């Protein structure tokens, strides 16, 4: 039987492939609220960081300026490709 420690490590390391492991994780989660909470928190952390990144897009003027600088440098170098 998979222990809480093994499950926590597998979830955080994303070592969940293979049907035996997948089933062991599912069965463990059915009877372990603490691990269920752990899995939720790991996913929430990712969601939170992703949302923060999506809510803070790079400044359009900066991107435009940088794009022109990159294209200018490539043109100067004679279009490397």
């Amino acid at each position, binding site marked *: 039987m998979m222990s809480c420690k093994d499950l926590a490590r597998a979830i955080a390391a994303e070592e969940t492939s293979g049907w035996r492991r997948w089933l062991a994780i599912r069965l463990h989660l059915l009877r372990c609220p603490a691990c269920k*909470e752990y899995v939720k928190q790991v996913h929430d952390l990712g969601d939170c960081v992703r949302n923060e990144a999506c809510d803070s897009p790079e400044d359009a003027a900066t991107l435009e300026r940088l794009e022109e600088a990159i294209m200018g440098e490539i043109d100067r170098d004679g279009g490397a490709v």
Partner: protein
Amino acid sequence: MRSAVRAYLPHVLRAARGAGLDPAEAEEVTQRTFTTFFEKAQRFEGRSSVRTWLFGILYRKIFERRRELARDEQRQEAIDEAFESRFDEAGRWIRPPHPAPDAALAAKETRRHISECLDQAPARQKASFLLREVEGFSTAEIGEILGMTQTNVGVTLHRVRHRLRECLETRGLRGTEP
């Protein structure tokens, strides 16, 4: 070429900033990344996706520039001990994660704490986490980008996620069972 720059530029710049470079440095490294990308485009063999290859160039430049970022992996991982200490000999929780309200993680203040906790993580841990969660790369792709085995990426993700949880708990955002 312009369409490729336009498509990938926001992601590359975001990753450069996320890696801890200041805004001016991040812009310079981003520019150099694209220059190298186009210089070496003829040598691209298609063994990875263009995006993975581009991010590989980016991170090599970041680690070249900030050698101390790459070095900090050498220190003993106290976080492994912290992880072990949360379980008994049978692998059961001694200090299980304390349930927190869903709204807590959405709060701006919490996001700031996460960002600060992430800044304390070693460079490759932080990079692995951001590449996975923000850019959506697979663990195999992260391995290609950062020059690590897929197993090492797994270990690194485990460490950074546990580190973040511990850091947030320390700040009172996540308690433990009494």
